[in-house]
């Protein structure tokens, strides 16, 4: 097991290097000047000073080498647009908020999505099943910005129940996390329902029933545990989705997280912020996948042998 984890960790290095290289090349390919944020032309002297300051006057391979060196020492460089701050500052201050938002959204998804899927599977084709699947489809189909706008309009502006935006008290956190959690929630509900239905048909469930095991025990121990494997598999990429996909939610609810930077930095050509966040997110996705693989071995002993 330990050897497996170490091997996986070592593999992260070339993957991250490849991610840096590809992002770096892609950013170099798109046109646009990071030092021209408005229609105002930048005088040649100013442009030259800025390129010198941020080492953009060096050949690309020097820039790349410097960048890799920076990442290795944990220095993601200065932001080209936010002049008072470094990418490290941005990450340190804003990333925890995105993580919090992502985990809360994930919490909603597990808390509501999994039970809904279980209930629907236990009473297939019932009213509850149809209802749950209807809402799951709706949750899947409605874009975040629409849900967010509707929630703010009704819950905050019309009924005055919760604040419209911001990220200070726990009241502020309900609507954004719920909105962001909607898609994974819907996804979990459908996934759990499907796998539960399948598991319920398995021979070992019939055996358990025949042995006279109590139904609750059959469901919680035998059916649910086996049905959760696909959920765990889906969780890792979903976590990536939740953090990168939080752009719209963070923007609409004015959550000072990192998701919105990811998109605005691309349009602002803030190379170092784009690179820094890409590296960070790839590390997170890699780590999440690793955690999932470890969880597998706990949930499903059969995978243990194959992987160690």
């Amino acid at each position, binding site marked *: 097991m330990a050897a497996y984890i170490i091997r996986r960790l070592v593999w992260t290095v070339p993957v991250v290097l490849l991610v840096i290289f590809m992002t770096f090349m892609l950013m170099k390919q798109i046109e646009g000047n990071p030092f021209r944020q408005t229609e105002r032309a930048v005088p040649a002297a100013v442009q030259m000073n800025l390129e010198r300051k941020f080492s953009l006057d060096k050949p690309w391979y020097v820039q790349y080498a410097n960048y890799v060196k920076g990442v290795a020492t944990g220095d993601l460089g200065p932001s080209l647009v936010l002049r008072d701050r470094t990418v490290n500052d941005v990450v340190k201050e804003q990333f925890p908020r995105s993580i919090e938002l992502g985990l809360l959204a994930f919490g909603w998804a597990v808390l509501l999505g999994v*039970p809904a899927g279980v209930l629907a599977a236990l009473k297939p084709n019932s009213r509850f099943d149809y209802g749950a699947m209807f809402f799951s489809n709706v949750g899947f189909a409605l874009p975040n910005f629409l849900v967010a706008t509707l929630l703010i309009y009704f819950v905050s502006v019309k009924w005055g129940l919760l604040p419209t935006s911001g990220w200070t008290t726990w009241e502020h956190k309900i609507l954004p996390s719920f909105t962001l959690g909607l898609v994974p929630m819907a996804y979990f509900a459908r996934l759990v329902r499907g796998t539960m239905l399948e598991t319920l048909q398995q021979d070992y469930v019939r055996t358990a029933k025949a042995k006279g095991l109590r139904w609750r025990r059959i469901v919680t121990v035998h059916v649910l545990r086996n049905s959760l494997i696909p959920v765990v598999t889906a969780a890792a990429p979903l976590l990536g989705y939740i953090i990168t996909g939080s752009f719209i939610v963070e923007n609409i609810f004015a959550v000072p997280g990192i998701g919105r930077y990811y998109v605005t930095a691309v349009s602002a050509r803030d190379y170092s912020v784009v690179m820094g966040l890409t590296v960070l997110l790839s590390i997170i996705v890699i780590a999440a996948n690793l955690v999932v693989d470890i969880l597998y071995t706990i949930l499903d002993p059969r995978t243990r042998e194959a992987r160690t």
Partner: protein
Amino acid sequence: MRLRVPLLLAAAVVAALAVVAAGCGGGSEKEGAVGEGKKATSQVLRMAWGAEPPSLDPGLATDTTSSNVLLNIMDPLVRLGPDLQPVPALAESWDVDGKVVTFHLRDDGRWTNGDPVTANDFEYSWKRTLDPKLAADYAYQLYGIVGAEAYNNAKPAQAAALRDKVGVKALDDRTLQVTLTSAQPWFVQQAAHHSFLAVHEPTVERYGAKWTEPQNIVTDGPFKLADWKHDASITLVKNADWRNADRVALDRVEGRIIVDGTTRVQAFEAGEVDALDGGGLPPADMPRLKQLPEYEKYPALGTYYYGFNLKNVPDLNQRRAMAFAIDRQSIIDNVAQADQIPATGMVPKGMPGFETIEQNFLPPRADLTKAKEFMAKADDPKRTITLFYNDAPGHKEIAVAVQAMWNELGIDATIKAQEFAQYLEFLGPPPNDAVYVYRLGWIADYGDPMNFLELWTSKSGNNNSRFASPAYDRLIEKARNTANDEQRYEIYRQAEAMLTGPQGELPIAPIYWYTYTNLERESVMDSFQINPLDQFDLSKVVIKEA
């Protein structure tokens, strides 16, 4: 037995929902309408800022949000009066002698650490902004000063020598002498721009790039930066030691940073903020918002225009036809909807000298008869053209409207959107050959027509039209050296005529002059004012009682 499990899980779901419901309390109530009430006891203004300030360093800031925070926590030499003329602020007076401007500073300017604000602070700050090592984007705002451009352009080896040649000098603690490259009669009012603010040298030297953080920053204005949570909030508190503090009513300005326009409006409507920062209201909501008593609009010094690539649309009569076919008023009423003013020239209404400069050749409403006459006179008119715009909200709708208007002339325009950064590269100058017509806008840095007309000189980096006229360049150069306002406005009139007059080349078809639209609680509506350069002075805001 079978039923128990679902019930258990259902209970969990219900419990989760109950947690949500429990949080649903304490919604704030809307403030009531305000009459001619007197000053309220609580002087706390809750504002929504439209962006995170990229920098609160006067040398590095380039955007409106940073600028407005800075102008409220710092003390400029001059501020702009209602007619955009400079009024004394930290400088109690100034003398202009040809190319030499001398500012006389008050003796009661104080930094928040107690140090006096001196002329040396300004000399240090302006030279710092020009330092090639600082690499300030807006260093060019100071290029009107002798030696400034050369220093900003210096190689590291020559920098120190060129620094001493920059024409800004503290003659003593209270006298700042500035030598300009030409007369530039607008220089004194230009000093109201945030690029001309002073910074506190010991603080800057000690903390480097981090000197603007609230725990480090030292300022000299009516408010202090009490707190700045990046991307979340900016809190200003009254600076009780400021030279004019007894005239400042507000105790605190609690600012929230809300980038999304719709959310900003919703935060206002839910009663969470008292005023927005004038950063614009969502176009789709305009018809409704304009009906609110809290709606306010201000004229802006800015021009929204369509430029022609003269290489692809070479015939003047075709350009005249196209400019006459645009129904500016209809675009404002039905598309833009923010009470803008139909633009009949490059220099916007409200600009000093406008009455002299304006041409009244282009019509506010479409004049199809004349447009068709011009089109008939056009030699080999281009009937299949492109119209480029950047993909920000609102531009497409205007492009579609103009496309339909030009269709009346038998011109088939294909409209094409591009992402902004890519778009700016695409426009050059010179513009890409695919461009026939392009959209751009210009917002003033200072209140002199020069700021608009110098765009169209042949070497200007902002002239994307391929319009190049030595006669025009000479006029602009002449204006730069003409101190007398009336004479200078007359030169501007000739320059504007060369662009949009009856005999003008029409490298552009102006569409509208901008307005700033805002939402302000009626308790602050009288005192919260945005000037045509998008600046607001919070030291003048008073919250009235309901």
